[in-house]
Structure formats: C-alpha cells, structure tokens
C-alpha cells in the first residue's frame, strides 16, 4: 500500500469516526430532549368548581380554553366566558352557529376565537360572530369535534372529514377517505406539531399530513381489529382514536382503549392495568410541555410518560383525591373539594392554573407549591 493510500484511508477512518461521534451525540441530545421531565410532576389543588349555580349556562361542559385573563368554556347551552370573576354566556341569539360548543381554539396571530359547534364553525373576532357551515362554505360538516389554529390556517375535525380553512384565501380543503388514508370520514381530533398535522380518524388511527409536501401517511393499530393489545408498544393501541396532541417531540394519541405516545420512531402504549392511567376510556388529550393531560370517564390523568398524577372525585360528595404514582410508589393526597366530576371532557393549563370541563360544570385548580 502506498503512503498516500494509507493517509487517505486514515483520513477516511477519522472522518467516519467523527461522523459517528457527532451522530451519536446528536442522537443522545435528541433523546435527552425527549426524555421524561426529570422535574416533579405538577400537582394541582385548591379546586374551585363552577356550575350553573355560579352562572354557567349549563353543567354539561365539553371543552375549555384559557385565553389570557379570560376562560372560554363550551357547553351544551352556549359559550360561557369567565372574566373578572363573572360568567357571561353567548348563544345562537348572539350569533353562534349552534349552542353545543364542542371545541375552542384561539389564534395566536389575530386573537380570533374559533368555536367548533354541533352546527358549524364560528369565528368570534373582536366581538363579531361569523359562521361557516357545510351549506354556506366549503367546510366538510357541521358537526365539529375539534378545532385548532395553525398560523393563518384553521383545521377542524368533523363528522364529515377533516377540513383546512385558509383565512387568507377563504378557501376550504377537505380530507376524507376519498383523498386521504382514512377508514371513514369521521374525525375526532386534530393537532399540529413538527410541521405536521395529526388527525384522529375514527377507526382509522392517526392520519399524518406533512404541511410542506402535502403528503399523507397513516398510523394504525398493528393488531387490527383485535380489542386487545397483542404486542406491547408495536404501534397505536387502537384504531378508534379520540384525540391527538403534540408537544416536546411527542405525539400523544387518545383512544377509548388506552393511550399511545409516539416519539417519531417508537410507539408506547399505556393502559389502566399496566400504567397509572386512570381509565382506558379517554375523551380528550392535551399535551403542554412535557406533560400530557388526559380527560377520561374516571377522572383526569396527567403523565410525563413515566410518572402519573390522577385526579378523581367521590361523585357522592365534594371530596376526592389526587393519586401520585412515581415508579411503583403510589401516594394519595386528599382534595377537599376535589374536581367537580369524574367524566372529564376538556382541559387547559396555564402557568399556575388548570381548568377542566366536566359533566358537572368546570373545575379550576391551582398549582401546588
């Protein structure tokens, strides 16, 4: 071997080693970013519950969104707004598309409030209501389960497919089994993260839409129609999905049969029998930072993927508890009063407060120091 060849080979080897080290470091850094939060799980207490006796239009609440100093709550009798210690209700008489408000999001850009109702999509902009329906616009369907604002676009998950509304061009784009990998048009949830839109498609798992390429792919349960999770962590726990939420590099997927988490490479499943999840029947998921908040039929579960804090109430009294699970250690903290009801449908958190929409009004908790 010539000397120059040896030098070349050495250089190549050195380059490979450098690339390998950089790659390993990057992977580790990336993995560290996705590691569960080493900080303590937030624990909320000092619950204050609001019902129709306090000014809510109804105790049947579906969703909640914190918007600066006010809180927006969707009920079956209109939109309730909590501001300066008082509730104010907006209904179809004020311009809502329908009194059943199932989903709320607020545009960070414009401050517009978007309300998904049982009778169409309402934009509440600086006091003015504007309605989009399947009849007066290109919106897929009037039954809207989820709405999110993604820059200038508004996405909805409806009973007739997912829809994207471009607020600049005022045009709708519809995604159903006709043009996307869905089992049927029924969609329950939608979220944005990492340049993608994740649609919870009923019976179709999760449909991922890459905004840049406008391409779809789907994630389904490898166990197919089986009601049990045959092989753990091999994919989605079930195809009947009820919500998606993306934060900190993780996609959280709610189903009526358990919880799934996806880090872009690996799936992990969580069930009530093998994790701290309080119930497999998950109505809604919202991830904020490293924590996922899971609204179930048996209370609220919160997790960082490893540790759990569950909030439940004794439905016959105002008392309840927070169950804290760290590894195998389980402790309970009495909550007097507790959350309003165990059937939780919506959640939102800000720095120090948490709001829950339940079947008996809304609950507000404060972060315990």
């Amino acid at each position, binding site marked *: 071997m010539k000397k120059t060849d040896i030098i070349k080979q050495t250089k190549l080897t050195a380059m490979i080693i450098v690339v390998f080290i950089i790659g390993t470091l990057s992977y580790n850094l990336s993995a560290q970013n996705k590691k569960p939060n080493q900080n303590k799980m937030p624990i909320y207490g000092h619950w204050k519950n609001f019902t129709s006796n306090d000014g809510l239009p109804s105790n049947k609440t579906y969703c909640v969104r914190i918007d600066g100093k006010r809180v927006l709550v969707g009920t079956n009798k209109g939109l309730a707004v909590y501001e300066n210690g008082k509730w104010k209700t907006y209904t179809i008489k004020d311009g809502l598309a329908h009194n059943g408000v199932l989903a709320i999001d607020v545009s960070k850009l414009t401050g517009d409030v978007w309300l998904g109702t049982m009778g169409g999509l309402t934009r509440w902009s600086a006091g003015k209501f504007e309605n989009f329906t399947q009849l*007066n616009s*290109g919106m897929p369907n009037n039954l809207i389960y989820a709405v999110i604002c993604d820059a200038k676009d508004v996405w909805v998950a409806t009973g007739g497919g997912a829809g994207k509304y471009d607020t600049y061009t*005022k045009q709708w784009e519809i995604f159903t089994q006709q043009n996307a990998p869905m089992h049927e048009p029924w969609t329950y949830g939608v979220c944005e993260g990492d340049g993608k839109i994740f649609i919870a498609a009923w019976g179709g798992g999760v449909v991922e839409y890459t905004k840049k390429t406008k391409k779809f792919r789907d994630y389904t349960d490898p166990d197919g129609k089986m009601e049990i999770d045959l092989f753990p962590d091999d994919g989605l726990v079930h195809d009947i999905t009820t919500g998606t939420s993306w934060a900190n590099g993780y996609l959280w997927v709610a189903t009526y049969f358990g919880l799934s988490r996806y880090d872009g490479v690996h799936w992990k499943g969580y069930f009530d029998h093998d994790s701290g999840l309080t119930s497999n029947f998950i109505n809604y998921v919202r991830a904020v930072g490293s924590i996922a908040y899971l609204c179930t039929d048996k209370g609220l579960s919160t997790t960082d993927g490893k540790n759990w804090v569950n909030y439940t109430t004794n439905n016959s009294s105002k008392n309840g508890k927070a169950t804290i699970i760290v590894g195998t250690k389980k402790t309970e903290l009495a909550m007097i009063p507790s959350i309003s009801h165990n059937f939780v449908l919506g959640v939102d958190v800000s720095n120090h407060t948490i709001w829950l929409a339940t079947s008996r009004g809304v609950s507000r908790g404060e972060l315990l120091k």
Partner: protein
Amino acid sequence: MKATKLLVIIGTLLVLGLIIYFPGRKLAREHVNYETAVQNHPLSCISCHYYTQRTGFISKLINEDYLSPFNLTVSKDGRRLFVIAQDANELLVVDADKKNVLHKIKVGIHPHSVILSENGKIAYVSNQWSDNVSVIDLASSKVVDSLKTGNGPAGLALSADGNFLYAVNAFGSNLSVINLKTKEEINRFSTGNNPTGIALSKVSKELYVTSRRQNPVAYGEPLVSDFTVVNDSTQKLKKYISMNNAYLMENVAFTPSGDLALTALTRPKNLVPAIQVERGWMMNDGIGIIEQKPNGKVVQLLIDEPNSYYSSLFDVVISPNGKKAFLSSSGVDYISVVNLDSIRNIIANTSPQMLKRLANNLGTSSRFVTKRIKTGAVPKGLALSPNGKLLYVAEMLDDKIGVINTETLEKIYTIDLGGPKRITIARKGRRLFNNAAHTFQNQYACYTCHPDNHEDGLEYNFASMGRNIVNVISLREIADTPPYKWSGKNQSVYKQDGMRFSKFLTRTESFNYEDLDALVAYIKTGIKLPPNLMYNKDGKLTESQLRGKEIFNRSVDNLGKVIPKKSRCVTCHPSPYYTNLKLEDVGTLSKTDDSILFDTPNLNNIYASAPYLHDGRAKTLEEIWTVYGGDDNHGRVNDLSKIELNDLVNYLKSLRGSNYEKSSLKTQHASF
C-alpha cells in the same frame, strides 16, 4: 355618343343608388331602432361603430391616455404634492409652488393610495391590481422595493412608531401588517367587507378601517357595514363598529384632538320600491361620526339637502384645528365644508332617539354644512397643506388638482397635471357615468350602484310592492355579454341606459342622444376587469381547480349517467365569458317575481360578486347548490361529494377576464 353613354352610366348608377339607398336606409333605420329602442335616434354609424372600438388603430385615434388623479398627499413642508395617477400607473411628484409636475414615477398596476414616511424620504404606494406596495425613494424618485400584500391593497397607514405598514386589502377584505425592517407581512386581520380607507388616531393609537360593501345578511334584511378597529400598540383586533343602513364608507379621518372619527357614507333604501326616488328617499349621502370615548355614540347625519343631494361621497379630511371637515362628493363635483363644533353640539344636545331619526333627516345639514365649493370633474382624494390653509382636491376626470383656500372657502386655482387636453367621447361618457345630475335631485350616479364599474352587493326593488327584487349586476365585460337586465329584456347597452333607465330608475329626463352615445361608448370600452390575483394569478390552475374544471365540463355524472345537455355547466356558461348569452330557467323564480327566464350571467371574477342569483338570495357560491340547487335545475350537482362541490367552486373562483387568458389578444387601449 359619348355624352349619351355617360348619361346612361350616370342614370344607371343613380337608379342603382336609389334602389340601394332606400331599402338600405330602411334597414339601417330598423337596425338603429332595434339597438337604441327608440324611433328617432340619428342615423349615425359612428355612434356605435366608431366610438366603441376597443383595440387597434381606431381605438388609438379616438382615445387618449389620461392620468386620472385619484388620491394624493402633501409633504411636511407643503412644497410637494404626491399624486396617484391611477390610469397612468404613476406617482406624480408635483411642485406645489410652481404648479408643475416634477417627476412621473412608474408604480404597479392601478395604484390606489400614497403615504409618506415620518421623515418624508420614502413614499409608499398601494398597487391595487398588483397586490403589492411600491416603496419609493423620493430623493432619487425611484421605486426601490416592493412589499407583498393581500388582495387589492388600497388605503395605507404607518404605525405610530413607523416600524409597521398597514395595507387595507379591498378585495380580500382584510388588513396586512408589514414589518418594514424585514419587509415581510407578519399578520393579516379580517375586516369588514371590501375595505378601502384607514386612519390612525394619534391619541388613542387605534386604527379604523372602513368597509364599502355590506356584511352578508339574511336575505331581505337591512344592510350593515362594519368599521374594524385595530390596536396599533398590541396589533390586535379590538372591535367592530356597525354602521346600520349604510355602506360605501370610502375613507375615515380623526380630529386632531382625537374626540371624533368621521367617515363618508351612503344610505341606500334598496329594499323599498325604487319609485321612492320621487319622494327624495332612494339614496342619501352622509357622514358617520364615532365618538372616541367609552360608550361613545355612533351617529349618522346627512349632508344632503331636501332638493339637492351630494352624491358619491369619497374622501374626508379635517383641519389642523379640528374645526372644519371637508368632504368630496364625486357625483356632483362639490366639496362640502362641515363645521365640526356644530356636529359636536348636535351630538351632545340631542337625545339618542332623535339622533337616530336625524340619520334620515334632510334638513339637518343646514345646521353644520357651512359651504359647498364647486370643483372640477369627479373630485376624489383630498389633502390639506400642513398649515391647513390650502385644500388640494384630486379632480379625477379633469387630470387636475384643484386648490381651495380654506379660510375664504373659495377655489383659488388649479394645477394642471399635464393630461391630454382633448376630452374624448368615452371620457365624456365616464364623467356622465360618475355624475348624479341625471337623477332626480342628484340622488345617485351610475357609479353609486356600480362602484369601480362593478356592483355594490345589494339587492334592489326596482318595481313596486316588493316584486322583482334584483341583485345588481357587474358592468365588467358588459359590452360582450348582452342581453341586459336579469330578464334579458334589453338587447343593448343603449336601451339599458336610455329611456327605460330614466323611466324606472332616475325619474328625470333621459340622456340626450349625444350624452347617451358617450355613456355607451364609455361603458362598452372603458371598463376593465381587474386581474384575479387571489385565485388565478398566472393561469396555472391548482389541482382542485383542475378537478373542478372537469366537473364543469363533464357530460356524465358520478353514477355513469349521461347528463342532459341543458344540465351541464358548460352548456350555459361557455368561455370566454362563461355565458351563452341566452335566457334560462334555473329554478329560482320566486313567487314575487314576474314569470321570466333569467339572463345567463358572465362568470369571470365571479368570486368578487357575492351575493348570487338574480335576487341575491345565495350569500356564497356554495349556497347556489347546497341551499337552492336541490332539484338540479341549476346544473347537475346533486351527485357530487362535498369535496367535488368544493372543487367546482374553486374552479369558478379561478375564472378571470378573457384578456388575461389570451396573451395574444390585443389589450384594450388607453384609459378613459
């Protein structure tokens, strides 16, 4: 012999001439009678066949390239005027002292407004048909940059700190916020419908954005137009302020003390029979006043007088001492001078109930209008000199700037911008089109219901007792799309604008033939269709639009059945105008309509013509089929999925003027 031959030839020619002349004249007479719908219009071929040429040599011969000053602003030292020459696509830099044009700076297409940076070194010009703002270095008189906006930028304003530019997108009905450091649009807010004017209150730091068209309302409901209020500091929408029963709010201004915001507006009575024009009650002109304090009143006062209306209000400016407001009425060529202290007194000392009634009171203007000042043809934009002593008026169809002494309230001179001296027939027609003199009491001009030569988005009751309510039709491409009226009763523009027009709409003497010739020449040659930059910028259709095009042209439905020819979109709506120029039944005749078929409308730029159908019952294109297309009478659509219907609608929105589709087509010549 030779003389005999000559006599025979002459005799033969004479006989032949007579044989041709009399039947020929008879044919010509019949032709003219048919086209004009009268029996005595002079037999002049050039009326219709010469002055209506749109391209080629004759068009160049008979037309001129006018400037058409539209808006303007004044430099801080008062020495320079910056004038938008809309038809020349130029910004004119004018020496206010020497009264001459110093520079002509080419900008984008169909410029609308101009503002200056705080230091006066930069001018920003909104280009309504280019969807951008030209940034002009005034030291070199050159365009140095172009800022992308939304669709149809019109009014402009700078943020209080000068770091952001607000551009009102008239066609997109939103407001672009542009960061002047990064030159990027950072936000876009929804506004009222078809906004044009914007002003920043230096006191409240709030931006007010006008709107010209009404909000979509339930069919038959009174109109409402919105002001959009944006907080300049937080750059968030603050609120919308409704102006009931009013529209065409072109511009807005704040008093220097910030106590009032003023807008020009029009109050149409579109849902009552048009016969009301005889009672002085069809179309009023006024000012909207918004008190700038918590729970401040929103008031409308008419500037009209009982027997003299001041139609087509456009601009409003307020003197530096906050005592006077000046409003331009482009339909009557007048500036109205308003005493603002009188306005303040009326608002302060009148009960809310009475204020509401004053919105329809023609006598109130005598309490606050102190002077009417005659201007040149079609006054549009206004600007005050920094000391407030001079008012500059863009006399659009004179190519001049009128200058008014604001102390004596007299017009003291004009600045000739150097436009053509010859007034062409079409230019004369354009003046007539914009002038309300042909309506009873000057109530409205053609332009009022057809702003920008388009339509005003309202439905009108042109008959009586609620019968035959009709949606106003756009005048764009009107020359090539006869017949006219929804019933198609008028076979020519001439007939449409002739006797019938005066009989049913203006309630005054009809145009004389010379004026009618000019008006028709303008309508048939001078109206241009804006580009469709929102949905079809370059002719390349999106995937959805292409799918929609297939549906539009299809002959077989989704079930495999052959669609009857009359139920195919393309049958009644063939290109280039997307009308077969025939009458059809689309199943939308209402019980209060006469039993008629409907003239098939032109579909180019149809996205900008909401509401839809002959009486405006469909608020959106979708509603034509989702609400009113249940029986498939208006094309076969009930087999379509929602995605396919969206594709069809997206294709319809992409349709644009035939002149944009055919690059080889000779472009329409000149401005008028």
